């Protein structure tokens, strides 16, 4: 209950600032560093796969991972059996 908050140790505002920054910046770094062509590449890859296999867009997962000096693109989907 908020009326008992005065009993808790008061959080220093600088610590709060640091925590908030760490969260927002790690989120922004992953979004901002993706190349401009990534959305289009994803769309085309999905279209190619869907041409050969009966898969919906949400069944194909494509993600980009950034390492120190290179990036990888990871694509995951389950190949349905032909006889199903």
């Amino acid at each position, binding site marked *: 209950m908020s009326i008992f908050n005065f009993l808790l140790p008061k959080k220093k*505002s*600088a610590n709060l*600032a*640091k925590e908030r920054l*760490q969260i927002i*910046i790690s989120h*922004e770094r992953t979004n*901002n*560093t993706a190349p401009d062509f990534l959305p289009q590449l994803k769309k085309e890859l999905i279209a190619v796969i869907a041409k050969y296999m009966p898969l919906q867009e949400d069944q194909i997962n494509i993600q980009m991972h950034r390492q120190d000096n290179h990036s990888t693109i990871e694509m995951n989907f389950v190949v349905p059996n032909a006889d199903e």
Partner: protein
Amino acid sequence: MAHVIVVTSGKGGVGKTTTSAAISTGLALCGFKTVVIDFDVGLRNLDLIMGCERRVVYDFINVINKEATVKQALIKDKRCDQLFILPASQTRDKDALTTEGVKEIIDELKQEFDYIVCDSPAGIEKGAMMAMYFADSAIIVTNPEVSSVRDSDRILGILNSKSHRATLGQDSIKEHLLITRYSEARVKKGEMLSVQDIQDILAIPLLGIIPESQDVLSASNAGVPVTLFDESEAGMAYRRAIAKFIGEDKTPESFLKKQKRGLFKRMFGIGEETAR
């Protein structure tokens, strides 16, 4: 070989122009032939901070448009004979800056100068992009405050992806963190992000810490770069940062000494109320 430095931050009002003026003056005092360029086309202020606002005849855009030569547009500083200022245009907008035009001028300045300091405007628009594009080093000016730190992180991302060096796949721009308006007392009370907090987040090497100081306003009031305030803590902090930038071995011995009441304070009678 000439070295191009961009002073940038993303956020406005953190001290980019103060820093550009202070750093370029310090480099010149150490004996390097230095030019400082104002990239804030339409909102120029470096001329005021350097105290040469009444001597502007031609500007950066005049040179890009070939209405004047680089030599005609450069303003020689009256205090340091190794220091020159290239002012921004006050009437045009930032679209007047072209990559080819900026490249041509920087290439020409490289023939004659040791250091080319580019004072970036705030934001991530054309002016800021052009200021950083040809840089070899970047000084990221950051206040110990959430919005400034976030914007600095964004600028670092842009430096690593959109600069000339990044697009050519060359060695990346050397990044230096300069924290300004720092208050040790408020950090101790837990009211302000510490140097360590900022370094943990931005993860780039620290060049210097400039304390919050009344001298910075006195300096801008007078149009004198704060580096020339011999007894000022902020001026001394800038001199230390410059010595670190160029390497102690290239720094004249007298540069880091607190001196007696300097010429400029005698002339203007300022910077005396600094707490020490």
